[in-house]
């Protein structure tokens, strides 16, 4: 187990670091003295102190921080407010809101970004303008069309789900007696909220903060759609741009900067929370927490929230679908209506002769790759989860078990695109008996499985701990060997958790982009990466059609999850 962890996580990290300190073949163009393979600080100097450092490193770093902080704070606001309304008010329709709250997270993260461009695109980036200009005749300002503000909004609308889930769970588990004790001593509602409820939710807010912050930093889709066209680069898009030019070592430097940034966040979080104040909220004795009465505001708020959810979940899809029916980009008259992008034959004058998506074998190949990748990833992740959980739970307290658990946690803090970069360095060349995996489908599976390790390890361990030692010992006394005990006692008792884990991994892998964008090649394209490729070729309608297909597949998958008892997004996140 330890060997596998080292192979999947530690060695790739080391290889990446090593690459940044050696001359690459291409470096001869930049530095006459470069000798391929020789040890050098060249890449670090170039990226951190050189003439290009400002453009290649510091500006993207600053942008990444601005976007991450902005999106995380906005997500915090939206997620916590929704959670509070669902858990702690007498608002009608809370069940509907609760069910809809996780939908934006299920959809690909750049869906809203793409819908945004369809709406607000202006002439700054070239090409045809968006709906806003078409219908209002006025060009939207640049700050609304591109750059930090739309990226922050579109990312927050996707990632607020973490805050929603964490805060809702925390609010639900707060013992209502804790608030009543304050009430009894004469504290008013505001004081109770400020002095008791809020501090008790802080740990949840911080976990949400870490998770969201590191995800937004590593996110590629949104910044690529809304930032790159106007040269607003973040670390993630800059990494890809460097890699695209073949400057892998430079890209790795940025990836390491990104990883360090994420690690600092985690460190700060742990310092702030500390161990003394960390606590499990002790369950009460089942009194329903007192709900804030909203009185006349109830219906207004419900209507507002549901409208909001429709706007962020359904409207983007509607806009994207609508745009795929337009023959010429940016022209929304009925005469421009076409089904060409869906079922049209190849016509040289449209999209360089690419046929409609439903007639295009490349799309079917991509869809098949997506499903394939998700199934394999889900399978191996669930499988590893069982084994990891068993190994860690069995050896609980030993140093080895702790080490495995800690290594398995590392991918959690490595932003998606950086994790992809790590794997390029590892598998570009053969390592020992393992061939160079770059360009293969297997590599996509490996990187996806490795990225899911923290979740699977956590679900695995908690599932195993729930079973309890006695049940297994009873089997031992009855004479069952280790395999028998695992097969007949442990596995049946823990499998429901793994089924939901399996389904959840399936969905998240299906719409994952940041992680694999650096690793896909034309033969291993998945739907997620195809949307980006079409977008970059300016085939907007194609890109939008592909994302509509992808969302449809994901929603079908999600519907399948809901058929399984106990399957939920929450469990998939290891909560």
């Amino acid at each position: 187990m330890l060997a596998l962890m080292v192979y999947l996580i530690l060695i790739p990290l080391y290889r990446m670091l090593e690459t940044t300190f050696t001359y690459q073949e291409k470096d001869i163009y930049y530095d006459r003295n470069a000798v391929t393979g020789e040890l050098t600080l060249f890449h670090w100097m170039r990226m951190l102190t050189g003439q290009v450092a400002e453009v290649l490193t510091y500006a993207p770093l600053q942008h990444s921080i601005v976007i991450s902080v902005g999106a995380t704070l906005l997500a915090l606001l939206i997620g916590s407010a929704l959670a509070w309304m669902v858990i702690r008010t007498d608002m009608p329709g809370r069940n509907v809101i609760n069910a809809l709250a996780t939908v934006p997270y299920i959809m690909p993260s750049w869906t809203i970004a793409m819908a945004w461009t369809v709406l607000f695109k202006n002439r700054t980036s070239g090409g045809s303008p968006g709906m806003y200009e078409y219908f209002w005749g006025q060009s939207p300002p640049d700050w609304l069309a591109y750059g930090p503000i739309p990226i922050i909004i579109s990312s927050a609308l996707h990632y607020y789900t973490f805050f929603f889930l964490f805060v809702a769970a925390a609010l639900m588990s707060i013992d209502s007696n804790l608030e009543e004790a304050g009430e009894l001593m004469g504290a008013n509602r505001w004081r109770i909220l400020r002095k008791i409820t809020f501090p008790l939710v802080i740990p949840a807010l911080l976990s949400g903060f870490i998770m969201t912050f590191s995800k937004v930093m590593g996110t590629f889709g949104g910044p690529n759609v809304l930032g790159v066209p106007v040269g607003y680069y973040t670390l993630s898009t800059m990494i890809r741009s460097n890699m695209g030019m073949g400057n892998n070592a430079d890209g790795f430097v940025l990836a390491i900067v990104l990883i360090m940034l994420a690690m600092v966040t985690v460190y700060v979080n742990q310092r702030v929370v500390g161990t003394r104040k960390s606590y499990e909220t002790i369950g009460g004795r089942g009194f329903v927490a007192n709900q804030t009465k909203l009185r006349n505001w109830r219906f207004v708020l419900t209507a507002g929230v549901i409208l909001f959810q429709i706007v962020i979940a359904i409207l983007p899809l509607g806009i994207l679908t609508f745009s795929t029916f337009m023959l010429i980009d940016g022209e929304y008259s009925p005469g421009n209506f076409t089904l060409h992008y869906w079922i049209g034959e190849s016509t040289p004058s449209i999209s360089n002769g690419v046929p409609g998506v439903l007639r295009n074998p490349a799309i079917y190949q991509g869809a098949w790759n997506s499903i394939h990748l998700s199934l394999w990833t889900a399978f191996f992740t669930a499988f590893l989860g069982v084994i990891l959980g068993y190994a860690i739970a069995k050896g609980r307290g030993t140093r080895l078990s702790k080490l495995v658990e800690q290594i398995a946690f590392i991918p959690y803090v490595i932003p998606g695109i950086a994790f992809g970069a790590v794997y390029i360095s590892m598998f570009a060349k053969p390592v020992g008996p393992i061939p160079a995996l770059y360009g293969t489908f297997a590599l996509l599976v490996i990187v996806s499985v490795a990225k899911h390790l923290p979740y699977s390890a956590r679900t695995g361990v908690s599932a195993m701990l729930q079973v309890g030692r006695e049940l297994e010992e009873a089997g031992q006394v009855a004479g069952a060997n280790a395999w028998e005990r695992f097969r007949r006692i442990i596995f049946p008792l823990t499998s429901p958790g793994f089924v939901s884990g399996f389904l959840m991994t399936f969905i998240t892998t299906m719409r994952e982009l940041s992680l694999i964008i650096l690793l896909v090649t034309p033969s291993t394209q998945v739907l997620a990466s195809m949307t980006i490729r079409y977008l970059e070729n300016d085939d907007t309608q194609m890109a939008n059609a592909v994302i509509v297909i992808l969302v449809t597949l994901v929603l079908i998958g999600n519907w399948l999850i809901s058929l399984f008892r106990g399957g939920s997004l929450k469990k998939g996140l290891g909560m």
Partner: protein
Amino acid sequence: MGTSILIRNLIKRFGNVIAVNKVSLTIEPGTFLTLLGPSGCGKTTLLRCIAGLEDPNEGEIFIGDKLVFSSAQGINLPAGQRNLGLVFQNYALWPHMTVRQNMTFALEIQKMPKEQMAQRVTDSLAEVQMGGYESRYPREMSGGQQQRIALARMLAYRPKVFLIDEPLSNLDARLRIDMRAELKRLHHISGATTVYVTHDQIEALTMSSDIAVMKEGVIQQMDTPDRIYRCPANLFVADFIGNPKVNLLEGKVDSANSVDLGRFKLAANTRDATGQVVVGVRPEDIAISTTPVANAVEFKTYSVMPSGADSTIVAQREGLEVTVRVMGNSKIRMDDSIWLTFNPDSLNLYDKASGNLVVSQ
């Protein structure tokens, strides 16, 4: 310094369930009243209604001479303005605050000067023998220590009424006995009117000045511990109080001073009791002999259970089972013949149909 509490015709419903059903209660200043009953009898709900954490549907509550709740007049004083303290079953210590912060929370609301606040913390901690724990967080203390801190938090702001909800149920047996003594002592010192909720009859009997036994939202009997034990007002109270349980023997009043139990007749002060009755007799009120005695009834021992200070003997005769308690370690063995004497003055007679006490000892 205690305050009286007066409750009139209080009703609290949860949907179709009536948790508190027309309860009327007068609690004199300085009383230690225990609300005793099985789980689900409405005792905690009644306590929470007094505290102001639950809104009753009907009735009135006075604390001192202040009307704090009245359905008729639409009065419902918020919990914080009733000047009472509540110790929760699970302590409800705020996990993110130190002991000191937990204790000064209420004092800060009262805007008490800093020095006085510090003095209060020190004094209150001393009262529960927890001096020196000011900077601990709740999770850094054992259950028993948390319990004491929960008490100290209440003592710190000197409420007129103590409301205590099953505080000992989460402690182990040994600690529970220690804390009983502590609580009784605290009540003695402070003189605060105390309403204590428990399902443990030993706690109720050992600590209270009065006990109110509840069942299905109705107070069955409110009396001193001794009266509750000796003269239970109905079969429910008789059966609920006492360990080992009271013997309840069904029979028929056949003539003056005699109850026919079917297998044998029992001399009793029947007074105005008639017809079908249930005779209640405490296990320790039955005299036992290993040799035949005049007016005694012969039984066979079914099981003998010595427990050090006393022994419990289960005896049978023609399918009738009687529990007897004797002091010391009994020499009687299983399947021995024994002779039991029922003292007419120690019997309570209940009407079988209504279950109410008709003749008390």
